[in-house]
């Protein structure tokens, strides 16, 4: 199988789907002539022309609101938020308009729009360029939410998103763009809302997604090597729809659950996973569920502070050991 970067895999998904469907329109800040600050859309302006790859002013509320109008009139807009943090500038367009339009109209319109964005810290970008908002879009009904961790998933999930009839928040991670991984040749899609067991194990289940999944895999390796603990690692891949069944299936074997995500702990996706597991599979648990997540403080710039705020692989290992030792 070929090796591609996360960026290349995303670009391949956009290219293939734009070839297939002339209604797909990309819009965003510096995505055309400049090629996107993370280079995902590089070359697409030359290939598809300025009508379909549109550089916009810095106007997130405006061009995402326009995306709603485009989607309601037969197009498949793909507005790009350069940083997830800017979603708050366009919160009305996203959460009051796109998310609710179908329900408010009694099903008479649809909004097949994919908002592409990237989030997360680890690079010292500070409190307004490092946040992770998947919980926000999981809490307010209306968007499907995808957070791929690998190049293969990035391509397959983006292709699914571009074919979905619902609004999709497609969340990349700024520190995944240069990661490499095997990507299948030829046509494939990965359905939204299906988790993936990235590593099999016996002793505990670790659930994660996005870049934190790589930390979970690293922690699982350490647990095996240094402590003889076999961790199963599940990549949730989407928080809406949320595939609890795959997690419960794993718990029938391991009976212990650790959830880790980069975003703040309070009211995060981890809390939701824990509750749903409690509701559906409490009897499978041999120990309280463990959560390793971002601290409930803004994300500081200095490396020594950022690494405290955002959970590192070592924190997952320590959490897993506490979970296994019942302390």
């Amino acid at each position: 199988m070929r090796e591609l970067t996360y960026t290349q895999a995303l670009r391949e998904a956009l290219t293939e789907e734009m070839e297939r469907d002339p209604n797909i329109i990309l819009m965003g800040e510096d995505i055309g002539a400049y090629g996107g600050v993370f280079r995902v859309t590089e070359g697409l302006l030359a290939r598809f022309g300025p009508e379909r790859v549109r550089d916009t002013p810095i106007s997130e509320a405006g061009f995402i609101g326009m995306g709603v109008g485009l989607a309601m009139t037969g197009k498949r807009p793909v507005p790009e938020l350069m940083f997830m943090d800017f979603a708050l500038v366009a919160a009305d367009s996203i959460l009051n308009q796109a998310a609710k339009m179908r329900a408010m109209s009694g099903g008479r319109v649809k909004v097949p729009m994919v908002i592409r964005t990237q989030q997360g810290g680890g690079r010292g970008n500070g409190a307004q360029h490092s946040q992770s908002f998947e919980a926000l879009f999981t809490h307010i009904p209306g968007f499907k939410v995808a957070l791929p961790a690998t190049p293969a998933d990035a391509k397959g999930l983006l292709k699914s998103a571009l074919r979905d009839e619902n609004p999709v928040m497609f969340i990349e991670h700024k520190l995944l763009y240069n990661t490499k991984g095997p990507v299948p040749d030829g046509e494939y899609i990965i359905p939204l809302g299906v988790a993936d067991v990235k590593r099999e194990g016996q002793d505990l289940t670790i659930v994660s997604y996005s870049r934190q999944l790589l930390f979970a895999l690293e922690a699982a390796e350490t647990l095996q090597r240094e402590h003889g603990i076999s961790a199963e690692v599940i990549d949730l891949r989407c928080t809406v729809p949320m595939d609890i069944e795959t997690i419960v299936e794993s718990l029938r074997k391991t009976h212990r659950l650790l959830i880790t995500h980069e975003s703040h702990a309070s009211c995060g996706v981890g809390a939701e996973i824990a509750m749903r597991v409690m509701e559906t599979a409490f009897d499978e648990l041999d120990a309280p569920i463990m959560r390793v997540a971002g601290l409930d403080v803004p994300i500081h710039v200095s490396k020594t502070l950022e690494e405290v705020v955002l959970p590192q692989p070592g924190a997952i290992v320590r959490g897993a050991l506490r979970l296994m030792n019942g302390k």
Partner: protein
Amino acid sequence: MYERMVLIRAFEEACVQLYMEKEIRGSFHPCVGQEATAVGACFALNPDDYMTCTYRGHGACIAKGIDVNAAMAEMLGRRTGVSKGKGGSMHWTDPSIGLLGENAIVAAGVPIAAGAALSAQLDRNGRVALTIFGDGAINQGAFHEALNIAQLWKLPLILLCENNLYAEMTPLAKSNPLAQVADRAKGYNMRAVVVDGNDVCAVYDAVREAARLARAGEGPTFIEARTYRLLGHMIGDSESYRTKEEVAAWRERDPIKRLRAHLAQAEGVTDAEFDAIHARVQQQIEDAVKFARESPYPDPEEAYTDFWI
């Protein structure tokens, strides 16, 4: 046009009554007094042109051709409503007449209409998009962002500001520093005109010309239509921010009264002919209320439908 204006007035007055009798729940913002902007604008468009408006948009939706029975059923929260009872007064939506929704957020419909205009521009189908909003919307960010992009990309968009002098309860002069609302467009190098919003023919002419220019690739036009809402912001509004004398003066400029006088004088329409129109409208409203009352409420399980596809 006269009959449609009378229909809007009768619909709103019936809803006021139904609201007082608690048959209508939630928010209801009547557009009584603003019928000329709605009818003048929509009659100047083609049936397949796009439109967005606001929660004070019943007039525009009826002018664009919404089914009055389904609209009344929506007010009463019935399954036969235009949005199956899920949207209510502020979210009438009907893509079959180009209506991309009323909106409960004052400026949110502006970028949505701009998106529809971009869609028309890309498809080269000759359609235009009309967005109707109030003077309260001109200070919100989405409004400015959409104007900027619409002019930059020369979108076939008509921006119609119903300037009724009050943003909810705040007088215009206390919410923006401009002497006239149309000057907002200057900052975007956008064509702007001011019309008497209570003169249906003036509104019609302005929108007709804006549509012609939009279809010719000449980009958007901003129209300020000066009008007045004769009732409060919503039912139950104390209206403490304006005088009875001011309202009475505007009642003298009632757009329906004015059009009737014009038609009688210039076209020789007789009282008997007017009476026939009013009787027809009255019957239509009575039928709509009957239809709505006799329609079923949605079943509880419908809370989950019409959402995910």
